[in-house]
């Protein structure tokens, strides 16, 4: 056929060097996933504090900062571990470059973690007053908890700032991705919203795990948040996957995955497991309160979110840049 003789369609690379394909791998996926939990629980808890009496969620005041603290430390740990020169992380604080979203994010995440730590200490001091007064034998911990207990009101004063700060801490990864101009799939304004939905999804899922003693109404709210978050997140993934604005490179990336290329299975597995199934499971528990089913939905959502983030992180990195 004549079109096969057109030179432009028959340009073939016959010699080139080989370079590693995927540069940001599973550690960055885990980093983003953990951050979603760390900030998401703050958003969801703030809403629940606003909507319900504290007695309806007896452990939320201390469980929220504890979950967030653990997740943020996983996030920070893998941020550090992913660096090829981990000890030089300090350079971000000694020689900050403020045009970099990595720098701004590191500073904000550090401040956020500090504030969450304060909330956690106060929350634990209030919850386990007797233990820290009589049972605890470590003097510095005892005095710290005593001090925290005396300043219990600080929790409510700090919380609004923590909620406010959680927004940029959630979204800055999208700005890092936007600055990663070699990966056109990430150059989409939808990434910011995708981060926010992921946080709501992960935050509600994480809190569902500790909501066994909560009132039915509070748990119903959690199920509703999870349902809404997975629905809109799924809708955005589908929009981006099938018919979003696409640059040439993003188009090529998605066309490859559409055609059954690498990560196609993981993507759909993540969509069904983490978005479609939890949506139906969570909505079904809103009428008939079923803690076990809701927890199952939460676990699926967390697993599915990891898979979806993993695919979205890796696929644009498969495209040769030159």
């Amino acid at each position, binding site marked *: 056929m004549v079109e*096969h*003789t057109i*030179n*432009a369609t*028959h*340009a*073939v*690379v*016959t*010699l*080139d*060097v*080989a*370079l*590693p*394909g*995927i*540069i*940001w*791998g599973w550690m960055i996926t885990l980093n983003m996933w953990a951050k979603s939990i760390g900030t998401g629980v703050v958003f969801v808890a703030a809403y629940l504090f606003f909507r319900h009496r504290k007695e309806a969620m007896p452990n939320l005041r201390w469980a929220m900062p504890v979950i967030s603290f653990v997740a943020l430390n996983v996030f920070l740990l893998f941020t550090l*571990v*992913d*660096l*090829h*020169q*981990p*000890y*030089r*992380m300090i*350079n*971000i604080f000694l*020689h*900050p*470059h403020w*045009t*970099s*979203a*990595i*720098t701004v994010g*590191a500073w904000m995440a550090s401040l956020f973690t500090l504030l969450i730590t304060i909330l956690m200490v106060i929350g634990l001091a209030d919850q386990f007053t007797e233990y820290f007064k009589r049972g605890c034998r470590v003097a510095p911990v005892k005095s710290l908890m005593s001090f925290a207990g005396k300043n219990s009101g600080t929790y409510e004063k700090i919380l609004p700032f923590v909620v406010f700060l959680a927004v940029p801490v959630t979204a800055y990864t999208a700005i*890092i991705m936007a*600055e*990663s*101009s*070699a*990966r056109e799939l990430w150059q989409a304004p939808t990434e910011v919203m995708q981060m926010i939905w992921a946080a709501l999804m992960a935050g509600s899922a994480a809190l569902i795990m500790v909501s066994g003693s909560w009132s039915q109404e509070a748990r119903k709210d959690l199920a509703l948040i999870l349902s809404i978050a997975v629905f809109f997140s799924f809708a955005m993934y589908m929009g981006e996957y099938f018919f979003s604005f696409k*640059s*040439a*490179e993003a188009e*090529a990336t998605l066309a*490859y995955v559409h055609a059954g*290329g*690498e990560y196609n299975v993981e993507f759909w597995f993540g969509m069904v497991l983490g978005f479609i199934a939890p949506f139906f499971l969570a909505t079904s528990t809103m009428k008939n309160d079923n803690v076990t089913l809701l927890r199952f939905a939460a676990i699926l959502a967390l697993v599915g979110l990891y898979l979806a983030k993993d695919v979205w992180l*890796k696929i644009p*990195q*498969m*495209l*040769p*840049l*030159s």
Partner: protein
Amino acid sequence: MKLGFLVDLNLCMGCKGCEVACKVENDVPLSSWRLRVKYIDIGTFPDTSRSFTPLRCNHCENAPCERICPVSALHYLENGIVNVDSERCIGCAGCMMACPYGAIYMDPETNTADKCTYCAHRIESGMMPACVVVCPVEANIFGDVEDDHSHISQYIMAHQGGVQVRKPEKHTDPKHYYVGGGTYTLDPLAHQRLEGHNLFNNITHLKHNGDPHHGVLDRFLAPFTSHGTHDNKSFMNFDNTHEQEGGH
């Protein structure tokens, strides 16, 4: 002063002399390249031709790598060169994600990002970059693009309409120009990678340490272990399965 490069692809004969000179001049480790020459075959037999495209850092005026670097390890010199301070680099690989030209690599020996610096150390001493000196056909033209009388400026003027840059749509304002190139040589989406070199790389992951026998903990222990004990042989055994599977 704004230093720039121009490669006349009509002259380049793919001898890879520039690639070797760069390796030697800058001690570029195995499995890494600051400058490479890609061969592309065009047409169908018997009407075929082969083109050679030297690829290196574009020293963009609006460099995404400089913008994303969290510690200013990548920075501009006064002469327009985008330089790397490997002592400051934290190895986050953000620059590798930002560079649309795939020009930055993670040095497996220092575990820091590195790339072509237009041989900044030679420029400082009044010398030309190693790849320019070694080119037998003077296909590499280097100089001040802000000086109307420089060779590169004259060359650009003489070839107006035929001067191209890679990925102009990225608005990086590269200071690396090509004459005699076409979409098929400069656009990675316009050529195929057959025999395993298909459009997409097979899944390979960047090793955090070039030595596959080193794990995560080794990065933390590295400052306490001597570089002298580095087993260079293991770099020779670096997992190169991706060579058959595809590269950038």
